[in-house]
Each structure stands twice: as C-alpha cells, then as structure tokens.
C-alpha cells in the first residue's frame, strides 16, 4: 500500500528526517520542469529545486495536512522562481548598462518566414530563441504569471493565490505579458 504524503509529512514532523527523502524523490522532476519553464536555464532550475525543498523542509510545520503537498510545494517553487528572476533582473540591468545597444541590435533581426506551418509561426530554433528572448523582456511577475497561465494551464485564481496578489493584478500581469510578446513576436507571424 502506498503511503500518503500527509503521513510522510507527519513522520518528518515527528523527527524522521529520512522520510523527507521520499517526497524529494517523488517531486523533484515536476519542480525542475516548473523552474526550467520559468527561468529557461538548467543550472538556475537546479538551484531553485534545491532551494524549494530546503524551504519546504524548514517550513513543514506550516503545511496543512489536509491540503495537497504537491500544490504547496508548487507554490513555494513558483515564489522561489519569482525571487530568483527579480534578483537576476537587477543583475542583468546592471550588466546591460555596461553594453548599451547590444540587445537592440539583436531585436532588430527579422527572420525570413518561408514555412507556413499549422500555427503559421515558424518554430525553428531561431524563433524559439526569439520567444525566449521576448520572455526575457517581461518583468518577473509577468513572466511567472504568463508561464503559469499559458504553459501550466493554471487558473487566474490559482495564480493570485500562489503569488498572493489580487485576481485583477494576476489578470493584468498576464495581459501585460501577452501585450509585450505581441510586440516582439507578431512580425514573425505569417499574415
């Protein structure tokens, strides 16, 4: 019989640290996927996974045994991603100011669109890179909200609960993200 996650958490809270290993083994991969989607970088995703589990272990007393452990862990991971992106944005802003013009030059490249695929968007490696670059222009909150809504299929309510913001703010973050992505990516769409 498979042991429930609530029972495992109770075991850990009772002092059995080894029991936490089961939760690590069960959820590492899904948290890694989320972190990778948010950051687009393997090393960053790995770091976020480690921090997520460390934080989960330290604040395990706050987990309500009735609720879903995976949802609770997912929320921790998303907030870790948000903090990470905010810190990175600050760092990047500092670095960009040292190399002015580079980003603008890259953005000016227009890709030749020749293959009318089903989505009318050429998903070549270059376009994927364009999408990644456009995602990089979003604010951390916009990026996280958009990833949750568009790629993870989370509802606006779930986004607002996870990020502890109002539903109107969650909607606004998704809208702003799409608006910015349109500006960057619409020239790639075959008309």
């Amino acid at each position, binding site marked *: 019989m498979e042991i429930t996650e609530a029972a495992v958490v109770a075991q850990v809270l009772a002092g059995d*640290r080894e029991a936490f290993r089961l939760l*690590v083994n069960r959820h590492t991969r899904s948290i890694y996927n989320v972190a990778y989607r948010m950051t687009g970088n393997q090393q960053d995703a790995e770091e976020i996974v480690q921090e997520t589990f460390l934080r989960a272990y330290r604040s395990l007393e706050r987990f309500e045994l009735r609720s879903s452990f995976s949802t609770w862990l997912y929320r921790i991971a998303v907030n870790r991603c948000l903090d990470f992106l905010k810190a990175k944005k600050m760092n990047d802003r500092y670095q960009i100011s040292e190399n002015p013009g580079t980003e603008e030059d890259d953005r000016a490249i227009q890709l030749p669109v020749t293959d009318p695929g089903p989505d009318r968007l050429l998903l070549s490696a270059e376009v994927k890179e364009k999408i990644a670059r456009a995602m990089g222009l979003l604010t951390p909150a916009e990026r996280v909200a958009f990833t949750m809504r568009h*790629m993870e299929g989370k509802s606006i309510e779930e986004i607002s609960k996870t990020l502890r913001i109002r539903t109107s703010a969650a909607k606004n973050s998704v809208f702003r993200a799409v608006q910015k*992505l349109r500006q960057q990516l619409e020239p790639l*769409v075959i008309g």
Partner: protein
Amino acid sequence: MKHLTEEQIVLHCYGDAGDGAAIEEHMQECSQCREEFDKVKVLLAGIPAVEAPEPPAYLEQKVWLRVRDQAPDRRAVSWMPKWAWGAVMAVLLAAAFLAGRFWPRNVDVQKPPHTAQVSPGRVLLVAVGDCSMNWSACWQRLPTARQS
C-alpha cells in the same frame, strides 16, 4: 460602435474576461475585433510550453544531501513540544525570582571604618611606587642570590 479593448481580447483568449458572452456577441458583429482576436489566438498558439530537458543525473540525490546537510534535525528539538519549552522557561524564571526574593541576605555587613575619598590618580601613584620599590628590592637581592 465601441470596440473591444486589447485587454478584453487577450483575456478572452484564455476565457478570463469576465464578460465572455458580451465579447462573443460583439465579435459576431464586429469583424475588426474578430480579426484582432484571431491574431492574438494564432500568436498564443505559436508559443509552445517550454519542454524542460532531462534533469541532471542524481538531482534527487543532490537535493536530498543538501536538505540533510543544511536543514536542522527535528529529532534534536522535537522530543519536547514547543509549549513545554515555554513552560520550562516560565518555571525557571519563577524559581529565579523566588530565590532572589527569599534568599537570606547578609544585612549587617559592616562598613569599613574609614571610607576616605581617594582620587584615582593617587591610587595609581601609590601602586607605581610599590611596584618600583619591589623591583629595586629584587634588583638588590639578585647578586646575593647568584652567589649563593
């Protein structure tokens, strides 16, 4: 005719615009808004969910080792509940207070007969004087000590 806002169109693509039925109704009549809506739909359909590559080997093991090394062992502190620790601290505080309150005090400590006010500078001079006298006495005794 009042057109839909960009926000309404974008949110409607996800089904998150509050007035979905009204938006649909408007788009039945307004080809401009319908066209705009289709454009956004196509664009969003072209942004795929990012596929994460295979996680690094032994990631679970790495995560577990970090948790084990950096997180506290709950057994060390969890054998007694938190409220019990609070109770222990309260009892200790009360005991310290009562001990201070009822411990017999040595009330008739006699003061020294003369508590003359001596300036610190004077104390220093006396101390230095004593010290130099001791040194000179030692110095004088040194040759005799060597001879013996």
